Every structure is written in C-alpha cells, then in structure tokens.
C-alpha cells in the first residue's frame, strides 16, 4: 500500500512537471513533505546530493524520497513512478511523429522548431554559466579557466564530452576545493 502510494505520487510528479529536473523539485518537495514530513532542511540536502550524483536530478530525488519512506522497495517504486509517464508520453508522441514526419506541414513545423531549440540550448548555457563561471556579474577565476580549456579542446579538437567531464571532475577535486 505504501509502495503504491509512492508510485502514484511520483507518477503524478512525472506527469505534471514540465521543464525537467529542476522544475520538478518544488513538486517533489510538496509530495515528500505530505508523505514523509520531510523538512526544508532535509530537502536541501536532497537537492545538493542530486547535483553531485550521476544521472538526472529527478531520478536521484525520487530514489532519495522513496528510500526515506520505505527503504529499497520504496526507492524502486518512486523511481519507476517518476519514469513511467515519460515512457507513455514519448511513445505516443513518437508514433505521431513517425506518422506525420514526411508530410510537408510537419516538415515546416519542424523547420521552425529546430532553430527555436538552438536558441533554447544557448539559453541553457547562460543559465548554467550563472553559479558556475559567473556569480552575478563577477567571473570566478578557476571555473573560467576550466571553461576555456574545455571550450578549446571540445571546439577545436572535438574532444569526447564524457572524457572531458571525467577529467574536469578529477582536476576540480584537486584544484578547486
């Protein structure tokens, strides 16, 4: 019964949160607070942990809340719950896309959506720069150096993103702390 409640709660969170990970956090807090009485302080630990652990923040958060409430079965139920809406919706949409992909109208719509997505990605750069290489208007020296080195290696030599991430992590642990 507890497991079903967890699954349904996270299914609801997965279904109604647009904009991915960080946009889901307020909903996760409300749900966790209702279900487990999680405090704001504990929640901020959850957020900090979700950021430094691998993988999507929403999955980390679901696993955390599920575990606190009902151990490993709870963690599993919450994680399945938060992923399930994605499975269903992506299926429906991709069926639709495959069916209409070759139509001229759909091609026209996609030709407008693609550049909008480029603009969206660039905005993600701006948001992520804030709090990393920038604090307000001020540049953070070491992160800027990391940024420039990775920019150079990835841009000029087409360096592997995963390899660069790992190297930046190791170098960060040694240098930035």
């Amino acid at each position, binding site marked *: 019964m507890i497991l079903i409640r967890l699954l349904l709660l996270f299914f609801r969170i*997965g279904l109604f*949160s*647009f*904009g*991915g990970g960080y946009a889901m956090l307020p909903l996760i807090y409300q749900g966790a607070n209702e279900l487990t009485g999680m405090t704001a302080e504990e929640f901020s*630990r959850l957020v900090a*942990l979700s950021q*430094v*652990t*691998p*993988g*999507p923040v*929403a*999955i980390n958060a679901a*696993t955390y809340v599920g575990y606190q409430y009902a151990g490993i079965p709870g963690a599993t139920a919450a*994680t399945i719950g938060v992923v399930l*809406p*994605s*499975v269903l*919706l*992506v*299926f429906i949409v*991709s069926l639709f*896309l495959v069916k209409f992909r070759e139509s*001229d*109208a759909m091609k026209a*719509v996609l*030709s*407008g*959506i*693609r550049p*909008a*997505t480029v*603009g*969206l*990605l*660039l*905005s993600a*750069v701006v*948001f*992520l720069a804030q709090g*990393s*290489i920038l604090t307000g208007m001020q540049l953070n020296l*070491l*992160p800027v150096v*990391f940024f420039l080195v*990775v*920019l150079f290696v990835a*841009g000029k030599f087409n360096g592997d*993103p*995963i390899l*660069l*991430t790992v190297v*930046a*992590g*190791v170098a*960060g*642990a040694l*240098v*930035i702390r």
Partner: protein
Amino acid sequence: MKELWQLFITFLKIGTLTFGGGYAMIPAIRRETVTKRGWTDEEGITDCIAVSQSLPGAFAVNVAIFIGKKIKGIPGAVAACFGLVFPAYLSILIILLFLGTVEDNVYIKGAFEGIKAASVALILVTTVQLGRGILKTKTAWVIAVISFVAIVLLSANAIYAILAGGLIGYFQYQYGKRKEVENR
C-alpha cells in the same frame, strides 16, 4: 539483441558519467548516439531535444526513451531508459546506505565545480555545432534569436519558445503555398 545491449551500455555510460542531469547530458548523448553509433543525425537529435523538452518528466529520460524507441521499438526504449536511470538510482542508494554525507566533502564539491564549468563549455560547443547545420536561413536565425531572448530576458517557458518556432515554421509554409498559387 546486440542493438539492445548497445543501447543499454551506451545510456549506462551516459547516465554514469554525466552529472546534474538535463542539458548537461546533451553533449554526451549527441556524441554517443550521432557521432559514434549513427543512430540518428543532427536534425534527428534536435527534434528529439525539442520533443523531450516539451513533454513532462525528466528531460534526459525522455531523450533516452525517444532514441531507444527509434532504434529498437519498445524493448529498445526500455533498455535505454533502464541504462540511463540505473546509475542515478544506485548512486543515491549507495550514499544513503553506506556513505552518509558526501555533499559537504571538499573534494566532491571541487569535482562538481570543475564538472559544472566543463558542461557550460560542452553545451556551448554542442549548440554552435548543431546551430551550424540548422541556422541556414534568415527565418531560422530570427526564430533562434527570438527563442533565446524570450527565455533568457523574458523568462518565458521553453515550451512556448518551441511552440512559437513551430507556428512560425507552419505559417511560413502556408504563406509560401499561397504565393505559389497566386503566381500560377
């Protein structure tokens, strides 16, 4: 079976070695699925990003399911999704069960700062490389600039930027069709 295994392993790798979720995963996803495996092309991955962003749920999970489904139907979607989700699930459990507070550790904090700065650069490079293939007309540039300005300066939700781009594309097509009829 081989493709299912490749999907699982590829997304397991992405899920294990990218941090912070969402957009931070895009450079790795593009490299692994477009450049290395050839599962989709630059336009395909851009469409996948747009759809994944417009749907609810965790962004990277949507991307994994989308690509898995494209390559190998329902089993492919499950394999890719499982590979991506498993490291996120397991790492939290290991920390809660065995490690206690790791988020205050100076080395982990330093590693995370390094990774964050690197992902800003990686996403920028990905954006420029994708943009080169996509921003080929004046209209495309206008749409990209409007979308960027609306999201960054006007705090518009990304979904509206994507919808607006789609509408502009559609109206331009209708307008072009009407002109063709008039010129006949």
